């Protein structure tokens, strides 16, 4: 099953352990995570369900291409990392 992990910086605000979920797109696996952890959604996606501006998702080490629909494909062995971009740290 695909594995989803979150930056430790997010753990400071909301419990988000690594999880293995079903899904064949980035959208699919994130929705599976949010189904178990609804509070996490607003930290990652904006009100239009797009990836937040200063959040980056890596699929097997490559940044996702489709930040709006999150349609990048995911296989059973895929590792998905949700990270914060350095661009959001200005405060």
């Amino acid at each position, binding site marked *: 099953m695909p594995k989803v992990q979150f930056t430790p*910086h997010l753990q400071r605000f909301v419990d988000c352990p690594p999880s293995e979920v079903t899904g064949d797109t980035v959208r699919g696996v994130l929705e599976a995570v949010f189904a178990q952890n609804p509070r996490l959604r607003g930290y990652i996606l904006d009100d239009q369900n797009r990836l*937040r501006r*200063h959040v980056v998702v890596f699929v097997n080490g490559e940044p996702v291409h489709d930040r709006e629909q999150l349609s990048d494909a995911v296989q059973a062995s895929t590792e998905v990392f949700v990270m914060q971009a350095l661009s959001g740290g200005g405060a």
Partner: protein
Amino acid sequence: MGNRILVATRKGLFLLDRKSASENAWNISAPAFLGSPVTMAFSDPRDGSLYAALNLGHFATKLHHSSDGGKTWQERAVPVYPPQPENLPKPENEFAKVAPWSLAQVWALESDGGAQAGGLWAGTIPGGLFHSCDGGQSWQMIRSLWDRPERNQWFGGGYDYPGIHSICVDPRNTRHVTVGVSCGGAWSTQDGGENWVCTAKGMRAEFMPPDRQYDPNIQDPHRLVQCQASPDVLWVQHHNGIFRSADRAASWTEIAEVKPSVFGFAVAVHPKDPKTAWFAPAVKDEFRLPVDAQLVVTRTRDAGQSFETLRAGLPQEHSYHLVYRHCLDVDASGDRLVMGSTTGGLWTSVNQGDSWECVSQNLPPIYCVRFVDN
């Protein structure tokens, strides 16, 4: 009255408690949300609940609630914008950009004035107004304001997008609410938010071409406040001046020639005396610094016919503090004031601003100060 102050800063929320009834001295708590920007704080007088709006940068806006005076906090819901239509109309003026339908910041948080605790109004960037009946556990967008066609002319003032920074609820009739929008003027409802009219007639926008300077819909009131005892009277610190209304915002009168400057962000009105108001002036516009590097507060007691410049206890040389729009507050008695700056300075007064005591010059940049009046 005025024995506790909420101080929302770039690095957390501080709670200040007065050391004793007779002193103008304060104990400063260790901050809640250490390291996180807190953009708005609010105390619900109906049950003593505290609310803090955080802007986490990467992870966006969050709302927290405390039912034990700030000892512990629980996350609550934030206002969420509805699905964005595909073909939004192009903005109708050269300053405006299409505002994304997504919460950027909670910029105002007020009681809805009803008997039930947890009835709240929230003003936001990019310009949506929301209401909650349950202390922020859920929010409803006021579509009647969001869907106004005039909103297509609103634009950001110092931010990329417009925002609602002031919400005034008429204590005589809680269905009468007036909001201040930068840059979108002032809007009022008489029926709890079902219908709205633009109520900024008389405001003047120096930053617009001459034939549009009095257009009510593009005005930039930085902060809008209402006298609680005389709610027909409201005051505005505007981008280029001071304005006062005595007819429930139906019309505004400009108060010109105010020394040392008509520019600033904050205004506070005496809760019992509609003729008394305080301002934190700065060199206008692109400079935004204390005039002559002297931090002062101005006060009028005659509805703007004259002003006093108050400086006792405030730094009078090499002072570059700037007071943002939510950083000047007066308590329910009208005697006690608190003021915070972008450079971490915090001052209080117990005599309507005649003199000030410095609480700290070392806090993080301050975004909002509020007395807890319960």
